[in-house]
């Protein structure tokens, strides 16, 4: 870790509450230039929320988040815009604009933030889509392509301005193993070739270990473990062990009893009449 240079992301004592529920509790970490940080953790443990605080779209209850050395939590709208032009973000849902085609989505940041001609932009769009394996899909609308393809278009859009910093929220969920490898290799190539820094949320352990230079595991809103992939792999922390090996039994509380109860109720055969009655009851 080249700690002689100031970190690109500096999160200090970040706390976020929704109502009286604490979703992020005292999170602190740094990300340095060129690192690929993978954030792991179970569904609903606050990974997307943590990303949202780093991109300035949510404000912390307390604590500070600095991007490129500037405090993003207290920044004015216009200053945030300036910082945001330097990073790209891939949303968990892709968040493509439904009214624009795939190509127009990728072109959007280029049209808004550069002075390039339409021809140049078209060329860049082609190239970015090619990087994510989507040549020839420019003219389709987002609702005409699959979820995994939307993800990749979202990635192409996040990379449109050649950002120095990339946030991506589960970039490989919904992708087949080959496309996962393609996306991972793209991240690696950008990290090594263009010294891009990346913060990647991932459940996919194969992919996580392939790209990470450092890993953080979240649980109950705080950092359970952090370290290099090697340190995480050999960690003696039972929660980490359970998560990276994908075991159902272990110290991570699953709150399954409630789910099981509901599940049983659903599969229990019901008399036909009662099912119809319920149906009528639900329909307004």
């Amino acid at each position: 870790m080249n700690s002689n240079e100031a970190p690109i992301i500096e999160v200090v004592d970040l706390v976020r509450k929704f109502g009286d529920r604490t979703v992020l509790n005292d999170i602190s970490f740094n990300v340095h230039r060129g690192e690929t940080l993978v954030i792991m953790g179970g569904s609903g443990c606050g990974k997307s929320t943590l990303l949202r605080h780093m991109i300035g779209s949510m404000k912390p209850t307390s604590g500070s988040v600095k991007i490129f050395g500037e405090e993003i939590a207290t920044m004015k709208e216009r200053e945030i815009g300036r910082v945001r032009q330097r990073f790209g973000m891939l949303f968990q849902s892709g968040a493509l604009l439904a009214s624009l085609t795939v190509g127009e989505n990728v072109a959007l940041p280029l049209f808004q933030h550069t002075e390039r001609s339409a021809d140049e932009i078209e060329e860049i769009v082609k190239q970015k889509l090619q990087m994510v394996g989507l040549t020839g899909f420019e003219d389709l609308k987002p609702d005409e392509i699959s979820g995994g393809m939307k993800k990749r278009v979202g990635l192409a859009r996040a990379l449109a301005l050649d950002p120095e910093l990339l946030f991506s929220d589960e970039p490989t969920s919904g992708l087949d193993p080959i496309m996962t490898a393609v996306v991972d290799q793209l991240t690696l190539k950008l990290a090594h070739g263009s010294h891009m820094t990346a913060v990647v949320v991932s459940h996919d352990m194969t992919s996580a270990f392939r790209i990470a230079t450092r890993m953080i595991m979240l649980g109950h809103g705080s950092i359970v473990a952090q370290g290099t992939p090697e340190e995480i792999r050999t960690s003696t922390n039972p929660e980490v062990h359970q998560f990276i090996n994908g075991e159902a039994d272990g110290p991570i509380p699953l709150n399954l009893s409630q789910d099981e109860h509901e599940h049983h109720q659903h599969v229990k055969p019901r008399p036909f009449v009662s099912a119809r009655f319920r149906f009528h009851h639900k329909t307004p």
Partner: protein
Amino acid sequence: MVILLAAKLSAFFDPRVLSFCASAYRILKNYLQLNISLLYWILIAPFTGQFFKISPVFRQMVFIGVRAAPMVALTAFSVGVTLAMQAAHSLQQLGAEIYVPDLVMVTLLREMGPVLIAVIVIGRSGSAVAAELGTMKVSEEIEALEVMAINPVQYLVVPRFLAMLVMLPALTIFGNYIGVFGGWAVCTFALDFNTAGYVLRALQSADTWDLYSGMIKSAVFAWIVITIACNAGLHVEGGAEGVGQATTASVVQALLAMLVTNAVLTGIFFFAV
């Protein structure tokens, strides 16, 4: 007496009343903020080099205005016919049928034209804008715009606002023509007017202020309708259900605000002078 007062006060602090006040306050605050930022992006930002793009304005003019034209035409025609028939019915008893064109013309220009066409546009285009922006909000598209450093007000609201500001007065003029045509149909086919007589009476009766006051009204209505629709859409919470509620709310709020403003403007234009 004291007990009664206490009861009234406690009713005032009822949680439902308080939560209604809180949500009304929140809507008003959001609404004011939207208006301020809209004015910033239209009037100030262009001088700092941040121009809005003009082509989306035209696209929105088609969505908001041109596509509403058939409905506006049908409504205006029926209103013109109705006005002429009502006027003829009342004026015949006085032997003053000659004034039917006057009544159709002045009522359309001053009141019916701007209000009815605003009603159509609220129901058709205002609700569509609220639903569209609301859907974008719940599917994270608005957040994605912000993260790409694209201001949603500049990118989404400004084109719709300008389109509405042009198209609602334009539709009103269009509707006025059709309405006067409806009046002509009644006058020539059911009463003893010839076309030249109808046109002459109609033109004589109206002065330019009748037209201008209607245009001012419909520009004000355009502002109200589109800002309320955008505000409702941009602040949707809670998925598809929230989008539905926001759409309904935007129609109700816009109708109320428009009708109240109409009364105020009529008062200013034709009573207070």
